[in-house]
């Protein structure tokens, strides 16, 4: 059936004409919580934060000094620049991510570090949808109706190799080399590969932002079992605990937020 003007849904026409979206498509943050703990290091080099509907998790790069400073400054700067208004245009978003990068670099310099680095994951719940953005290997998952979906693709060497049509398993490369980041905050141009997109959202969706200290130690069975936990605090705690139980030695952070319908 080929549609014509007469067959267009009235809702679409209303939308095209600029009328606000129906309340049924709107969602709000129903709850959220986070858990974070240090791994083998004395200091936790992960950081997290939220302001209004914007949630951020950052992971300071362990191979560089000042990881904790980089992560904390990345979260603070993100909550500043990404909550000023709801404009999303790629150039605008890129400009703001550049401001975050500047803040991270400046914070490292003030602490006496000339090279700092951090990965970052952002979930922003807005009137017009849910925006996911990340740089590096902080991941965002969506839990919906018992299904766990990874919404981000790491900016890492192994993904570049896969994208080039090469099976990483056939390469004589260590896991460390394959996991090396191709994009991160903290240097002049390394952040430019950042990702941004709107994702589908439904009432009762839950989003998890977590660092590699958590997801690298989570097996599929762990995800399946833990996704049954409905309460945000309990789920965040359980994920961090499960990663620790599974011998994760890295810093572990999980932030969980759940969506609800309009009031």
């Amino acid at each position, binding site marked *: *059936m080929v549609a014509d003007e007469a067959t267009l849904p009235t809702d679409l026409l209303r939308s095209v004409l600029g009328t606000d979206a129906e309340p049924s498509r709107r969602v709000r943050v129903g709850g959220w919580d986070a858990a974070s703990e240090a791994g083998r290091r004395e200091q936790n080099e992960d950081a997290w934060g939220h302001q209004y509907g914007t949630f951020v998790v950052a992971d300071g790069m362990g191979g560089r000094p000042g990881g904790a400073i980089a992560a904390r400054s990345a979260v603070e700067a993100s909550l500043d620049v990404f909550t000023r208004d709801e404009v999303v245009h790629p150039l605008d978003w890129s400009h703001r991510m550049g401001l975050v990068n500047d803040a991270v670099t400046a914070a490292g310099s003030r602490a006496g570090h000339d090279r700092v680095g951090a990965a970052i994951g952002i979930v922003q719940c807005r009137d017009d949808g849910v925006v996911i953005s990340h740089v590096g290997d902080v991941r965002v998952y969506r839990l919906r109706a018992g299904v766990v979906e990874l919404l981000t693709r790491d900016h890492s060497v192994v993904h570049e190799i896969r994208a080039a*049509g090469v099976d990483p398993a056939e390469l004589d490369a260590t896991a460390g080399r394959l996991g090396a980041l191709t994009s991160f905050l903290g240097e002049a141009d390394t952040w430019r590969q950042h990702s941004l997109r709107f994702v589908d959202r439904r009432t009762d969706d839950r989003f998890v932002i977590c660092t590699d200290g958590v997801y690298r130690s989570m097996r599929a069975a762990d995800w399946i079992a833990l996704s049954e936990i409905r309460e945000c605090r309990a789920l965040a705690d359980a994920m961090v605990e499960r990663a620790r139980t599974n011998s994760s030695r890295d810093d572990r952070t999980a932030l969980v937020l759940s969506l609800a319908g309009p009031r």
Partner: protein
Amino acid sequence: MSRIVSGRDADGTSDPGPLDIGPLRIADGTGIVARSASAVLFVATASAAGQPDLVAAFSAAEPGSEASRVTAAAADASFDVPAFAAVDLRVPLRVIAFGAVEIHTDHPSLPMLSAAASTSWVERQLDVGDSTVTISIGASPNPATDLRLGCVAGGGFTLEVAGRHAAAPMPTQTAGTPTPESAPAPSVTAERELEPRVSAVDQPSSVDHTTGDADPTTPIARTAVDGFAALRAAMEQPGAVQDDVTLAPPIGGRSPDRADSTGGRPQTRSRSDDPDRPFVLAVHCTSGHPNPPQRSTCRRCMAPIDSSRPAANVRQPVLAVIRLPDGTQHSVDRQLVLGRRPDLAAARADRSAASVRMSDESSVSRTHLRIDVEDWSINVVDCGSRSGTALVSGNDAEPELLDAWVPHEVAAGAQLYLGGPTIVTVMAAPLDEEVDVDG
């Protein structure tokens, strides 16, 4: 085209007018499709031990109550049943879904129906009126099949239903395959009604499918009552499939009739001729379908996934199929750029992207829309088109106007309105495109 008259007249509220029912085309797959005199059932997987056999419930139901018996069986089992879909072919037309099965129609009010996010079944009534509605589940069907009564293995079906005064769009029956219109109204026992009747309408058949010359005691006929287990047992018996019965081929297979019937098939490359296709990390279900690593059940056939097995790198699966207004279909397994004369550079696309040229629709820009594949996700990007793009994510979803150059996630069931009236539909990939041959 057969004619079904409403059986819901008792309460005086239903429309007594008849519906014209076109051929029931069967798609490849490992589920089961059953048809009675007034309903069609699709069950995605075999019932596990302890679960009720939905096909048996369907088969045992009185004519007119098949769909209700199936939903009652599901409710009695606290919905511990496989995903299923049912269509009640009376007036008003009822469409029912449970679980992660997706029913697609071209009716404006129901682009897609799925109960993936629901703990019970969902159902909708369609006012067919004088129009023709196409209802489809699963992959493109085998055009040489037409299930009249009974049950067969299949991954879904496609069926056209027309209102009273609609022009009949369905293929005419060929000689040797009389239409059920010439047959007396069904009044025989359920088992007799459910004799398997899958015929190749493109070829003259020597069997009168209306009078049911097939022996109802054949293994295939018994499957109507016994469900999956008996069907599979019957298919394994040498000679069980009679010459006049064409069963849907297994996943990855092709019936002989399909070689020259690819008009509606996705325009896709073979898996072996593209060594540059990206790799993604995947786990496989017991049927061999690749899945994202965190899943516990197959996103397509709901078969279980052994979570203890490590993920492996596999070539990028076909994530979906898009259907253009002219009916052509394209596999989504790499970046696509859509427009009247798509320019990859203008779309900021990769060099490996494919151009999809659309007919000269005034609402469509030269370079209008980009479709990105990112591991297991599909994103659409409006390329700054003149008339814009609206996304309807699925049944009951409100339209969303896309911000230019901002990727938006889409999934099967979504519809994209390019500049308004031009609709691009995102559909689930055919199951046979998804069996990973490399992994």
